[in-house]
């Protein structure tokens, strides 16, 4: 790791002030710290927002779910309130990394980093979530911009995510055997505006919604509706663990399983 200056922010406003230039925000640091260790990331300063109480916690009021950015995967996975409102998201959180990673990693960190193999971005897209920052609210559809790219501007900090609990939802993931990140992760949701299917781990340009699968499910939210569905391999990643063709195939398989699980 290169030299770095560490700051612990007392508040969001404090963090915004410190997060200038080559500084980076750190919450759980489950991606950033390893990247710094291998010297792939070299921020001048680290602004730690993990201990800001205002960024923590899960609220459910009526159908509206709000999760603070510094809420850990473990807290999301084990929240009773969330297990009732949107068990698919609890299930997703319980599948991230390993127990030690879940104790530290946060939902805000995951979506702000927008790793193409991260799990949460697919949920945000499929749930039609809104990303709340210290400056504005951004629809998930407009938030994820490509590999490690988001709509966040300098000094802008994710403070929470919020969404309306879907009628049905589920997440299925096929892991890279080595890294255990998603080779393909598919989040399906049936909400007020119909069926939404978001795919992580597979897209050349990061997380995306599968219009083909959404169209197939629009008529009937049932695994059978995907029996002959196909997803084009063209815009998918290809690496030694999974070719684009294999990923295209797995997207349909995982989608089918997710729909079956959502209906179960």
């Amino acid at each position, binding site marked *: 790791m290169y030299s770095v200056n560490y700051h612990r922010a007392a508040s969001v406003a404090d963090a915004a002030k410190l997060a200038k230039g080559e500084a980076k925000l750190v919450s759980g640091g*489950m991606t950033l710290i390893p990247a710094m*260790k*291998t010297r792939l990331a070299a921020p001048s300063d680290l602004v730690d927002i993990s201990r800001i109480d205002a960024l923590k916690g899960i609220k459910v009021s009526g159908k509206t779910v709000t999760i603070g950015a510094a809420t850990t995967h473990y807290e999301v996975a084990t929240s009773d309130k969330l297990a009732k409102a949107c068990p698919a998201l609890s299930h997703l959180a319980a599948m991230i990394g390993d127990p030690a990673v879940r104790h530290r990693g946060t939902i805000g960190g995951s979506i702000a980093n927008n790793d193409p193999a991260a799990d949460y971005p697919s949920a945000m897209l499929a749930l039609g979530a809104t990303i709340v920052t210290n400056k504005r609210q951004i629809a998930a559809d407009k938030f994820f911009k490509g590999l490690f790219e988001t709509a966040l501007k300098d000094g802008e900090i994710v403070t929470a995510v919020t969404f309306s609990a879907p009628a049905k939802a589920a997440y299925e993931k096929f892991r890279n055997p080595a890294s255990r990140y998603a080779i393909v992760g598919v989040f399906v949701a049936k909400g007020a505006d119909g069926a939404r299917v978001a795919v992580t781990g597979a897209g050349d340009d990061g997380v995306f919604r599968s219009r083909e699968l959404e169209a197939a499910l629009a008529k009937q939210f049932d695994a059978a509706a995907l029996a002959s569905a196909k997803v084009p391999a063209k815009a998918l990643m290809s690496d030694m663990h999974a070719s684009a063709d294999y990923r295209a195939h797995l997207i349909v398989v995982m989608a089918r399983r997710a729909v079956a699980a959502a209906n179960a």
Partner: protein
Amino acid sequence: MSEVSLTVNGRRVSASVEDRTLLVHFLREHIGLTGTHVGCDTSQCGACVVHVDGKAMKSCSMLAAQASGSDVVTIEGLTDGGDLHPVQAAFKEHHGLQCGFCTPGMIMTTVDMIARHPEGLDEATVRAELEGNICRCTGYHNIVKAVLAASKTMSKVSKGKTKKAA
């Protein structure tokens, strides 16, 4: 430089360290607790697992400065110098270790796992929960046995305590 101040195994320790110092290096090099190991660079092997504020975490993936103010327990602090912790005893009894390098992390992960599963554990759950700990020697067979045995022992102990308290 950061002034890092935390409680390690019940003792207050503080030191001025480079901000880039990882918690694992703080523990190993600044306060001489070498039971916590480093086995990889990518937060996957789990040899470095310690408890921070009561939860298992990978000490290779956080800065000492991030842990400042926290309560840290390492393998050296699982017991107060007395008998073995039931998890340590189970690893010994069931031959859940060979070269010993991954063992501290395995044990710290197991203690945390058992605490999160008061309802008890089955083999599939144990294997899934060990996702973040790699062992090259044992093939996991005896580790799984040890974890299940320790979980049983500890639930008996805690039930006994509850009874007494009642």
